[in-house]
């Protein structure tokens, strides 16, 4: 698979002498669904802001499809990587929902008929089309979050980067976001999310990048990482419930496989119960 984002020995600081990123190396291939996880302040958001050139490295470099972000305008970078911020209000500033989504497209100079079609497509996908003439500020927080996603989807970047897409979302909204992300994957998009949501990650992503104090401390499939208690502690994560459950039983002398498949897990437990009688 081809590489879409390449980060080489990236260092970054907001204030001189206080390094927020300390030598990040990372390669993201087309079609991956990646979660960046780690404690508050680990540098996750700072890292993803380098993915579309909002921030530029003070040492090392970031390549988008082989091009250094230092030589790309934010507009050029945005066509490769679309970034959805954690707080949607930081990126909503137009008078209507429609204009919000059309904004970037107009900036990129698309003709109005294409803009119209794209905006309609993105708003319908996010189930916001009925609000197209309303002010973004009359929408609920969940709807504003979906609007911010729609605004990015409309300019069709290859990679979508979302900072905490499920934080503060209720169950139904979270399901909707999962559905959308899965749909985008089937459309061939590469997706990177920053999240604390361990249960969401187990179900959806194929790689976790674990950060701690400005460094990447591990990278691999969720199940592999979630089985490593020392690593999780370092990243201030709790294992998924299924892992905690089976680990507790195993530590008390009832060895059981990970419980992700509840049916299989219950069969195994019942076997133990019946065997013990």
């Amino acid at each position, binding site marked *: 698979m081809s590489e879409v984002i390449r980060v080489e020995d990236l260092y970054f600081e907001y204030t001189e002498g206080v390094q927020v990123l300390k030598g990040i190396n990372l390669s993201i291939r087309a079609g991956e669904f990646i979660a960046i996880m780690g*404690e508050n302040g680990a540098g996750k958001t700072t890292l993803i802001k380098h993915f579309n050139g909002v921030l530029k490295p003070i040492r090392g470099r970031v390549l988008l499809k082989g091009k250094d972000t230092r030589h790309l305008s934010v507009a050029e970078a945005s066509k490769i990587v679309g970034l959805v911020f954690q707080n949607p209000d930081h990126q909503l500033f137009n008078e209507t929902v429609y204009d919000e989504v059309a904004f970037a497209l107009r900036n990129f100079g698309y003709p109005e008929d294409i803009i119209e079609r794209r905006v309609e497509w993105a708003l319908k996908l996010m189930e916001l089309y009925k609000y197209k003439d309303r002010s973004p500020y009359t929408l609920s927080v969940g709807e504003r979050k979906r609007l911010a996603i729609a605004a990015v989807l409309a300019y069709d970047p290859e990679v979508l980067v979302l900072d905490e897409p499920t934080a*503060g979302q*209720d169950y139904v909204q979270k399901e909707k976001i999962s559905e959308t992300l899965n749909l985008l994957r089937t459309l061939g998009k590469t997706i990177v999310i920053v999240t604390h949501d361990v249960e969401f990650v187990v179900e959806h992503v194929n790689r976790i990048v674990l950060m701690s104090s400005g460094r990447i401390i591990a990278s691999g499939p969720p199940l592999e990482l979630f089985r490593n208690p020392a690593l999780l502690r370092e990243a201030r994560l709790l294992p998924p419930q*299924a892992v905690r459950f089976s680990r507790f039983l195993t530590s*008390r002398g009832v060895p059981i496989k990970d419980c992700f498949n509840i049916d299989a897990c*219950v069969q195994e437990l019942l076997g133990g119960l019946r065997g013990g*009688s």
Partner: protein
Amino acid sequence: MLVELEGVYYRYPDSSDWVLKNINFKAGEGEFILILGPSGCGKSTLARVLNGLIPNFYGGLLDGKINIVGNDPRKVPTYEMSRHVGFVFQNPENQLFFTNVEREVAFGLENLGYPPDEIRRRVLKVLEEYDLMELREKSPFELSGGQQQKVALASVMALEPRVLILDEPTANLDPLSALKVLGLVKKKTLESKLATLVIEHRLEIVLPFAERVVVMAEGEIVYDGDPLGALERYGYLTGKPFIIRLIERLEKEGIQLKAKSLSPEDVAASLLDILERGVTRVGGN
């Protein structure tokens, strides 16, 4: 009872829809109550009634019997309510203003006109309790999300409220920080005999702390009872964490667990009990 609501209805100004409908709700000392429900179900509106922002700030029409630590928010100014009801927001940055943590914690007390000696005593007490002594000279904005949430909590607790409301207190925290903040809240709830109401969507983290769950939908309380029952009946609104799905599946097999809480460890321990007692009647129907 610290909180008593009877037949409470509310609608915002310029709206003819009731956003709270016939709310009957009581909360007593030492209760840690989890409030669940989809966005827009009225959870946050209910919280605003309890801390007096409704009707004092938002206006609108509030009807029914309300008694919060002996006060009716319709008859008492908001600052008076803030002595009794502490409120912690989802995003701590929204309630932090000052250049250092100590000033931040003292602010509420100064605002309510407490004497300097009393302010000093209470500030030191909460800084100690919330493990913030070392950070007291720091700007709240230099702190991590978890630390900020602790400062917000400490500032509220310095007022020694009897009712504590937390609106998605862990939404922006990593799991261990979230666990720590909730653990602290639970401990204070029991020690100081508070009535604590937590609005939270991250069930897998908060569920083990709650003995009582209230589910709201479209402005009404549709469930008030034990956590497992809430999720078994209203999981389609709130989501069902792994542990609930597992318990349900085991119940189908005739295994009734008596877990101390809904944490994976407590549930596993209760299953272990059954295993060790060598229960023979499994799936016997």
